[in-house]
């Protein structure tokens, strides 16, 4: 499912003294199959944007019975029309089946383990499935789906199903929470800071899990992250949000070449980009895609070209 947003704006507490514009005229396309990263400060609008993708935040036009034509003064162009489409779903329309949309677009919030609630892991994972299925699934169907979802997140069904989700370790809880979202087999999986608060090893495991899901389970993955290293290592494409606008959309390879611009926005850059610019200041040009692997290979190649091993040059 392709995600297309054009001229998308959103105001919190509209028509009140607390009105804050969270999105200002955002246009962004996320192609099917992408491992998409969304970067930006707290308050830059990234979470507001992703909450639109499964209709948690709705456009005013999708809530009213009839679309109102925007008023405009004589001689002025009407404001550009807002477009928000996820695959077949037109999210500006009231007629849209939002329940079906939510089944196809899974949303994993920050710290999803705080949302675990059921008595057993099986019931917790099954909850979304029961809610989103058009027909009531049979117990066998539920068991099968829960089993598959737990297994893809790397948990053993037999061992886990009757346990209380609250007696699991932090990393396991997060896996169960993710299983509870992917159990409906969404085509798009959106995760808000999936690795936040985990220790470095836990982070690594979560990112490996997401790659596995991307290969075997969900066509498109969208992650919101503050961690530039995470973006540069994992994403195929990244959008930078700032003050409710999209500043740029580029593959990390090109994005982090513009390290200065990111720094100017107050954003971090990945370590590899810091090294590349520190080397450039010393007159050493390293051309890499900002993954650790590629950086190391390129540096080693340069070194070998200069006499390399044992040369000490």
């Amino acid at each position, binding site marked *: 499912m392709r995600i297309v947003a054009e001229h998308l704006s959103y105001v919190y507490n509209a028509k009140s003294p607390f009105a804050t514009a969270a999105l200002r005229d955002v246009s962004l396309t996320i192609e099917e199959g992408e491992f998409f990263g969304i970067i930006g*400060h*707290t*308050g830059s609008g990234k979470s507001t944007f992703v909450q639109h993708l499964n209709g948690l935040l709705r456009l005013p036009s999708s809530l009213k019975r009839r679309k109102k034509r925007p008023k405009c003064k004589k001689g002025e162009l009407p404001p550009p029309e807002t477009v928000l489409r996820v695959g077949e779903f037109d999210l500006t329309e009231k007629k849209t089946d939002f329940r079906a949309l939510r089944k196809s677009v899974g949303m994993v919030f920050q*710290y999803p383990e705080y949302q675990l609630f059921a008595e057993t892991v099986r019931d917790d994972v099954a909850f979304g499935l029961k809610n989103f299925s058009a027909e009531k699934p049979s117990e066998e169907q539920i068991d099968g789906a829960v089993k598959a979802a737990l297994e893809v997140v790397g948990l053993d069904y037999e061992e886990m199903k009757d346990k209380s989700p609250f007696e699991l*370790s*932090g*990393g396991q809880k997060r896996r169960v929470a993710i299983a509870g979202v992917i159990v409906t087999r969404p085509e798009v999986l959106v995760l808000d800071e999936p690795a*936040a*608060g*985990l*220790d*470095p*090893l*836990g*982070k*690594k495991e979560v990112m490996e899990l997401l790659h596995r899901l991307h290969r075997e389970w969900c066509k498109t993955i969208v992650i919101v992250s*503050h961690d530039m*290293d995470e973006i540069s290592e994992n994403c195929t494409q990244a959008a930078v949000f700032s003050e409710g606008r999209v500043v740029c959309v580029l593959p990390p390879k090109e994005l982090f070449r513009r390290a200065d611009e990111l720094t100017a926005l*107050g954003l*971090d850059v*990945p*370590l*590899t980009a*810091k*090294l590349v610019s*520190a*080397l450039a*200041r*010393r*007159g*050493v040009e390293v051309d890499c895609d900002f993954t*650790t692997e590629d*950086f*190391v290979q390129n*540096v*080693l190649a*340069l*070194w070998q*070209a*200069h006499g*390399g*091993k*044992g040369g*000490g*040059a």
Partner: protein
Amino acid sequence: MKAIEFTGVSFRYEEEGPFVIEKLNFSVEEGEFVAVLGHNGSGKSTLARLANGLLVPDEGAISVFGTPLTEKTLFEARRNVGVVFQNPDNQTVATIVEDDVAFGAENVGLKREEIGERIEFALRAVGMEAYRGATVARLSGGQKQRVAIAGVLALKPRAIVLDESTAMLDPRGRREIVDVVTRLNKEEGITVVLITHFMEEALLADRAVVMNRGEIVMQGKPEEIFARQEELVTYNLALPRIGVICNRLRAAGMPVSNTLSAEQLAEEIAKCV
């Protein structure tokens, strides 16, 4: 003087359960800045909760600024050792910043004027004096966490324990907290125990301590600890990305050191090529 001293401390959450901390000897000097590292479940948070009497050890003794921690001295110990936790949203009790900062000070029964002065001092120390009358719920994560620190500071503690207090913050919020804590340590002489997953934060400490299965397995200057990378990995601590890069380059025979500074590494690479 020792700010916090653990002697042969063991603790488990359930009777008959496994010990989360076992025969632990650990001490922090007054005025010291100590970073505690360790993977999830290594006993770091238990350590924080033991240090100000939120948990009571099953064996061994804990003393705080020379006073043994017992039921009688518990409240004095809590005044001396303030703990800031991970989730900013779980640590606020009032809706307005100054009320929240005053909460602890009110609870220990200080005079009204005194409380006013302490709020003033605490908010200034964390750089939040402009937000005195602000609604806590409308602050950013980093700001909320600074208010939580101010609430602890209003009790004029001699030591602060931060239990992964930066884990839920964005990079900017994290920097705010680390700056405040470093300044409190250097300028106010407050003892700091910083429990963290972020290796860069540990670099600012005088001493780093690595925990594994409730024991201290490594300690020393942060740079020395990070130089022992193979060992860190065995304690389930993933290396920071720069450590991975240094290791890869060295494995290929390139003469670079085990530095954690990007500038330093760039300098060394530049010399080789």
